[in-house]
């Protein structure tokens, strides 16, 4: 699919989505329900709507794809693979998770170390406002400072400022080599030393005992980094460990080392060099690190959230009950 023009069928589907969202009653948008509880459940009685699905156009020579928000990440990936490309959203359950859902939640995947956060993937967003109008932010080009960056504001906004209908995403070439390596002996490898010696690793994961490393790129480089940096303390493995699903912490990457002392706080897996931590018991990990749980937001920042919500959704009809930050 290399046709750039957007036909009337597509636009009418977005218009239908806007009509579906309407202008009056409380409404929430449903994707794959894979992260449905993040930010709290919508207030009972809130009408559920579904965003349109489908890849509108993939332009490999532009390294961009226009995709509707209801498309599953796996369906998007299968289209991009035909053009030798990918987007690095990497949700845990790509067969169920939708593009719109992943972006509305805003959690980055396990390859953030190389490809950057989910928000950096988004070039353009078409969303439905609380007034039921279609609004465009950003543009279909890879570099753009035309106007305010509403795209980044919407990523992670949990559908409380607008309901995402369609996005243009930045693609990456699929790497020629993609290999996971795991440490052999528990506790024998310092993940921070390994991270410091690797150049542009795709992922370095650590659970307090073992270290997993994803190397991607030219096969010669992957071989060389595996031999010279990882060495005999690592062996090739099929993939990353399963990630605990109890919750997620966000730590400054320089503070991750403190995790080694958290003791009996359940299982956790940290992204070294990034700072996200998936944990069985995030509150216990936070307590062991003397961090507030849930994370605190400064009062003046809360005021800014309210100022934004009041303007984007004055009647509070978009995803009522969901909170992006503290009350």
């Amino acid at each position, binding site marked *: 699919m290399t046709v750039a023009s957007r036909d009337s069928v597509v636009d009418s589907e977005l218009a239908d989505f806007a009509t579906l969202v309407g202008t009056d009653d409380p409404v929430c948008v449903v994707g794959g329900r894979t992260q449905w509880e993040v930010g709290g459940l919508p207030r009972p009685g809130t009408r559920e709507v579904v965003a349109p699905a489908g890849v509108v156009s993939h*332009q*490999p*020579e*532009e*390294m961009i794809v226009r995709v509707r928000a209801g498309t599953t990440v796996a369906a998007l990936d299968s289209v991009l693979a035909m053009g030798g490309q990918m987007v690095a959203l990497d949700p845990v359950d790509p067969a169920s998770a939708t593009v719109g859902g992943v972006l509305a939640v805003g*959690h980055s995947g396990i390859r*953030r170390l190389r490809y950057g*956060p989910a*928000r*950096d993937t988004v070039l353009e967003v078409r969303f439905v*406002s609380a007034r039921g109008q*279609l*609004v*465009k*932010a950003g*543009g*279909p*080009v*890879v*570099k*753009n*400072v*035309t*106007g*305010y960056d*509403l795209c*980044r*504001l919407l990523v*992670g*906004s949990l559908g409380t400022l607008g309901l995402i209908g369609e996005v243009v995403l930045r693609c990456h*070439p699929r790497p020629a080599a993609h290999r996971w390596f795991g440490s052999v002996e528990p506790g024998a490898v310092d993940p*921070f030393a390994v991270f*410091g010696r690797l*150049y*542009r690793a795709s992922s370095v994961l650590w659970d307090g005992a073992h270290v997993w490393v994803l190397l991607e*790129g*030219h*096969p*010669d*480089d992957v071989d*060389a980094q595996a031999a010279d940096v990882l060495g005999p303390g690592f062996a090739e493995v099929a993939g990353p460990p399963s990630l605990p699903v109890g919750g997620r912490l*966000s*730590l*400054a990457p*320089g503070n991750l080392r403190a995790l080694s002392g958290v003791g009996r706080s359940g299982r956790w897996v940290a*992204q070294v060099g990034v*700072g*996200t931590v998936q944990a069985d018991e995030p509150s216990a990990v936070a307590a062991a690190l003397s961090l507030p749980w*849930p*994370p605190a*937001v400064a009062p*003046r*920042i809360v005021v*800014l959230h309210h*100022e*934004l919500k009041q*303007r*984007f959704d004055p009647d509070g009809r978009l995803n009522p009950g969901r909170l*992006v930050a*503290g009350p």
Partner: protein
Amino acid sequence: MTATASRDVPPEGTGPAVGPAAAGAAAGAALSSVGDLIADLGRALAPDRVRSSATEVALYRRDASMLAGEAAVICFPLTTEEVAAAVRVSRAHGRPFVPRGSGTGLAGGAVPTGPTPPVVIVTTKMNQILSVDPVARMAWVQPGVLNLDLSRAVARHGLHFAPDPSSQQSCTIGGNVANNSGGPHCLLHGVTTAHVLAMEVVLPDGSVVELGGLDPEPAGLDLRGAFVGSEGTMGIATRIAVRLTPLPPAVTTLLADFTSFEAAAQTVTGVIAAGIVPAALEMMDALITEAVEAFVHAGFPTDAAAVLLVEVDGLPGGVAAAAAAITDIARANGARTVRVATDPAERALLWKGRKSAFGAIARIKPNYYLHDTVVPRSQLVPVLTQVYEIAARHRLRLGNVFHAGDGNLHPLILFDKREPGVMDRVLAAGNEIIEVCVAAGGMLSGEHGIGLEKRDFMGLVFSAQDLEAQSWLRQAFDPAGACNPWKVLPSGARCGDLQDLPPGAWI
């Protein structure tokens, strides 16, 4: 009135500069005398860091764009507390304020405009690198630190600050944040927003907040992302936590020359379509190449219609493979020669040529107007063809030196402003170039921003609803409209009036 001094007299028909009679509600408080304002700012900062002589105020009427406004007073805070105090004093005196770094912006974002002449708050004396953490690969800096100074300071740790605008020797990190600045190497490494972790910001009401965080997913909305690129309209960043990027272990720079710009542009498309993302992919046309070679003597072929400067970086295997593939693609598209430079001195010479372009063209004409649009990469050939036709129709010399890899055009119109009527032709050609780029599916700006220059073109790419949604973001930060007024968004009344500059600003 300082605005009418010397050679900066506005051309007829652009209207008078604003005076006290035009004082409006934007800043919220009653307008008081400039003398009282200066006295209060002097008490809040220090009298010698509040400048109000006619000469000094006139210096700050402009940035690097063709536009000028009028400032009430200029102040130079040293600390966050002083920035906050300057904001509060401005507001108490009914004045808007305009943040400013080095003033290298090309879209008029730092030109002082507003319903009454604003206070210009200059951050260049806040120029300390506060801390560097080489293990976590980040640094806290003040906004007045120069872009290249930061990269030089952290080079001993094997790190650099990746955004590298052409003005990197003189532009500030604070200005980079305001404009979400780019540069040649942003093709692979991303523009400024990808390299800003957190900021301490003085909001337009004088309060101080931290946006973002050193952790990857701070709780709440991405206000950091919303702030970066807001062109100084949502507050003033006073401390910035930047991400530092490891210097690549291997780098190769290639120079390919072509007998037609179409062949060069097709090579760009071919490289991207082959799944190669170079660190930089720059194109220079014949006019630029000739001027640069005469200036730098880098060995650029002066008889080429276009040259591509391509850099690949990373691990050695990938770099070698990409360099070989790029060479093949360039040859397949008719490149006459492909020069491959791996040693640092030769690479530096090639880059010196690229980065000297704007100085070198001064040998041709004394003035230039540098445009900045972005188009889909596949549209480079038809758009450039039309850009050259527009210049010819307006009897103007035009060169192209730009970030071809991400479709970011920089048409450069050369002129001598002493030539009667030439500015009209320069502006008319510029408007047509913008319209051609938008018609090709492009956007108004890839890295210079909207500022004043393109404010009234926003309606070409955004609907009234789109623009209103953008205004919701801005108003949440600055409900009174006191922070860098009249920039980025067209006022409702003016929406659609192209290049209708506000009173008090002129070219």
